[in-house]
C-alpha cells in the first residue's frame, strides 16, 4: 500500500488512472452495448451526433462512430499491451546479456541495437507491415521490432552498474550460476525503470498502431481508431464528428497512459521522491 500512497501523491497520475480504467471498461463492454459488428451499416449515413439514434453520429457508409470507438478501444489496448510485452521481453534479454557479460557480447548486441535505432521507427514499422501483410500479428511484431532498442539500452545500463555491486559479487563468491545471478539478483533490482518505460511504450505503441491504421495498413477485419480517422478524413469539413471523436479517444488514452507512467516513475524511483 506504500506504493499506492506514493502514486496518489501525483494527482495527475490518479486522474490518468481513472481515465484508463474507464477506457478499459469501455473496451471490455463493447460487445454488450454495441452487439453488432462495428463495420455493419447501422442507419442513415452522415448523421450528426445525437440524431437518428447515433450517439456520436455516423460516417459516410452509415457506420456507428460510437460503436467503432468502443470496439476500437479493444484493438488499441490489446495491440499496445502485446507489442510492449514482446518489446520489453526482447529488450530485457538483449540488455541483460550485453550489460552482464560486457566485452565482445556487449559490442555485438549494442551495434545490433544501434542498427535498429538508426532507422526512423515509424517508417520502419510501415515497411515491416507492408512486407508481412497487414494483420494483428504483423502490427504487433512491427511495433515490437521498432520499440525494443530503448528497453535494451536501459536494461544494459542498469546491469552494467549493478553487476559490480557488492551483493552481486557476494553471489559470485558463493559460486552462483550466471543465469541465477541475472534473473534472481540483478533483474528484480532494475525492474522499476523497466516498468516505467514499458508503461510509456504502451502509449507510443497505440500511436503507431493508429498511424498504421490511418494509412490503411491496419488489419482490415478489425475496427480501430486510426482506421476511423482515415475513413473520415475526406469528410472533415462536412462531417467533423467522424474524425474528431476517435481523435479524442486516442488523445485521452495516450495522455492517461503517460500520466500513469509518470506517476509510476515518481513512486518507483526513490531518487526523485524527495523532489516535490
Amino acid at each position, binding site marked *: 500500500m506504500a506504493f499506492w500512497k506514493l502514486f496518489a501523491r501525483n494527482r495527475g497520475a490518479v486522474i490518468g488512472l481513472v481515465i484508463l480504467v474507464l477506457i478499459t471498461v469501455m473496451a471490455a463492454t463493447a460487445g454488450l452495448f454495441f452487439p453488432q459488428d462495428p463495420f455493419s451499416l447501422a442507419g442513415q449515413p452522415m448523421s450528426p451526433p445525437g440524431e437518428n439514434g447515433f450517439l456520436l453520429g455516423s460516417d459516410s457508409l452509415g457506420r456507428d462512430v460510437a460503436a467503432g470507438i468502443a470496439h476500437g478501444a479493444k484493438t488499441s489496448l490489446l495491440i499496445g499491451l502485446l507489442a510492449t510485452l514482446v518489446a520489453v521481453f526482447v529488450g530485457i534479454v538483449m540488455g541483460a546479456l550485453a550489460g552482464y557479460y560486457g566485452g565482445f557480447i556487449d559490442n555485438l548486441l549494442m551495434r545490433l541495437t544501434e542498427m535498429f535505432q538508426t532507422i526512423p521507427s515509424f517508417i520502419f514499422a510501415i515497411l515491416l507491415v507492408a512486407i508481412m501483410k497487414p494483420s494483428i500479428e504483423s502490427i504487433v511484431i512491427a511495433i515490437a521490432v521498432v520499440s525494443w532498442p530503448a528497453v535494451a539500452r536501459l536494461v544494459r545500463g542498469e546491469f552494467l552498474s549493478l553487476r559490480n555491486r*557488492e*551483493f552481486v*559479487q*557476494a553471489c559470485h*563468491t*558463493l*559460486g*552462483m550460476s550466471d543465469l541465477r545471478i541475472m534473473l534472481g539478483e540483478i533483474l*528484480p533490482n532494475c525492474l522499476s525503470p523497466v516498468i516505467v518505460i514499458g508503461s510509456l511504450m504502451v502509449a507510443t505503441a497505440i500511436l503507431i498502431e493508429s498511424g498504421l491504421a490511418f494509412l490503411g495498413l491496419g488489419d482490415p477485419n478489425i475496427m480501430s481508431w486510426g482506421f476511423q480517422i482515415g475513413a473520415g478524413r475526406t469528410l472533415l469539413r462536412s462531417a467533423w464528428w467522424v474524425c474528431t471523436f476517435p481523435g479524442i479517444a486516442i488523445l485521452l488514452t495516450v495522455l492517461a497512459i503517460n500520466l500513469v507512467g509518470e506517476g509510476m516513475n515518481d513512486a518507483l524511483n526513490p531518487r526523485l521522491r524527495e523532489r516535490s
Partner: protein
Amino acid sequence: MTRLLDITDLHVALPPESQRPYAVEAMNLHLEENEILCVVGESGSGKSLTARAVMGLLPKPRVRIAQGSVLFQGEDLAQASEERLRAIRGSEISMIFQEPMTALNPVMTIGVQIDEVFRFHDRMPGKERRRRALKLLQDVQLPDPEQTLKAYPHELSGGQRQRAMIAMALALDPKILIADEPTTALDVTTQAQVLKLIKEMQASHGTGVLFITHDFGVVADIADRVCVMQNGLVVETGTTDQVLRRPSHPYTKALIGAVPDLVPRPARARSSETVLRVRHLEKTYRSGGGLFGGKERVVHAANDVTIDLARGETLGIVGESGSGKSTVARCIVRLNDAEAGEILLGDTDLRPLGRAAMRPHRARIQMVFQDPFASLNPRTRIGKIIAQGPMMYGASAEAARARTLELLDIVGLDARAYDRFPHEFSGGQRQRIGIARALALEPEILVADEPVSALDVSIQAQILKLLDEIRDRMNLSMIFITHDLRVAAQVCDRIAVMQRGQVIEVGPTAELFANPTASYTRELLSAVPGKDWFSEPAISSETP
C-alpha cells in the same frame, strides 16, 4: 577574544515522517575567534545539519530551523534573507567538504574556481586576483602553484584537491571556516598533513574553525574545544583536555572507550599448519591506449605478492588506498583473475581454475564486504540471503533454514530477522548479516575487506569482537584488509604492509608496531591521528 558564533536553543526540524521530530534539538554552542571547535558524533547525530544550518544550506522546506537563533557577530542568520546569506557565505563564513572530488567542479580548472570566489564577492583587477590565487596555493603548500592553477580537479590527488578546497575557502579571509569531515576520505598520511595545514592556516589567520568529525583521533590532534552530540542533543562540551581525559557523560565515555587501542593485544600462539599460501601473485590494470592512441597506463596492483596464512590466525593487510590490498583479497576469492603466481589452498592452486572448476572450492573461502548497504540485495529477504548458499550446495530447505537461524543467533540477531528485508536494519546489523552469509558455507578462510570502515566507532568495536569470537569458535583463518592501524592492532596476529602493489613488510603485530623496519611503515604509524592521547591505558580501562 571575540565571540564569532553564538548558537542559542537551536532546533532543526525534520519532515513529519522522520524517526525523530528534530535533527538538532535545543543546541547551545559558541565559537570564539582563533579557536578550533570540534563537533563529534556518530552518524545521524545531527552534526552535519548543524553546519548546514549555520551556512543557511538546509534542504528547505522539508528541513528547517524551527526555533532558536544563530548569531554571527550579533546578526541572526536564522532570520537573515537569502541575499544576505549569499553575501556572507564564502566571504565571512566558508566551508570545506568531505569529498573534494565532488565539491570541485570537474570541468573547470582550479584557477578559474578560485577566481570565481574573488569575482563574486569583491571588485579587483584580474592581475590582482591571479596574484592572490597564486599566493593562496603557495600558502596551502601545493607543489608548483603556477601549474596547479591550470590543473583540472581530476589531475590532482585527493590530498591536493583538499588543499585546493582549503585555498578556496580561505580566499576571502573568512572569520569562520566550517569543515565537514574534511579528512575522512583521505589516507592517514595525507590526513595528518591536511590537519596540520588547517591548524596552521587557522592560527595565521585567526579564523574560528567549526570542525565536524566522527573520529576522536582527529579531535585529539586538532581541537581546542570539543562538543559531543548524540541523537541531535549536545551531551557534553568542554576543552579537549576535559572531554578526552575526564569525560563526564556516559555516552562520551563509551565513544572514547570504543576507539581501538594502538597498543597491540597480546600475541597468541601460532599454529604450524599453513592453510593458504599465496606465491608471487601478479595483477596489473591497464587503461587508456586503444584505437585513438594515447598513452597506456599500467598500474601494478599486485606485484610479486607472497603471503602465508596459518590455521586460526588473522593476517592483516594494511596500506593506503591504491596500495593493492583489496586487489589481493579479490584475487584470493577469485573475484579478480590474477595474471601470474599461485594461490595454494591446501594443495590446490586456485589461480588457473575456470569458473566451473572453481565452484567446489568456493565454499572454502568466503568474503565479508566493506559496504553493508551495498552488499545485501535490497529485494531479498534476510533468510534467503543467508540460506541460498547452503541450498545451492545441496542442503534441504529445512536444513538451510535451521542453519540460517543458528547463524543469526551466532551473529547476535533475532530469529525474526529471517523474514525481513535489508533496509529494515542498521549498518552494523547488516554487517552481521553479511558475516552470517559468509559463514553459511562453513568456510576455512574468511577474507574481510575493510569490514568495519563504513561503521560508527561503537558499532565497529562490536563487529570486531564478533569476528574474533567467530574465528575462535569455528577455527577460521582470516585475512583482514584495513587502512586503520588501530583496528589492525586489535584483531590481527600478523600484519603485512602493502605499498604500490608490493608487500614491503610482514611480521607479528606487536613486533611490527614496536620496531618497524620499512620507513613507510614508520610513516604510517606516526600518522595515526591522536596517537599521543589514546595510547595511555588510563582512559580505556575505566570505560564500560
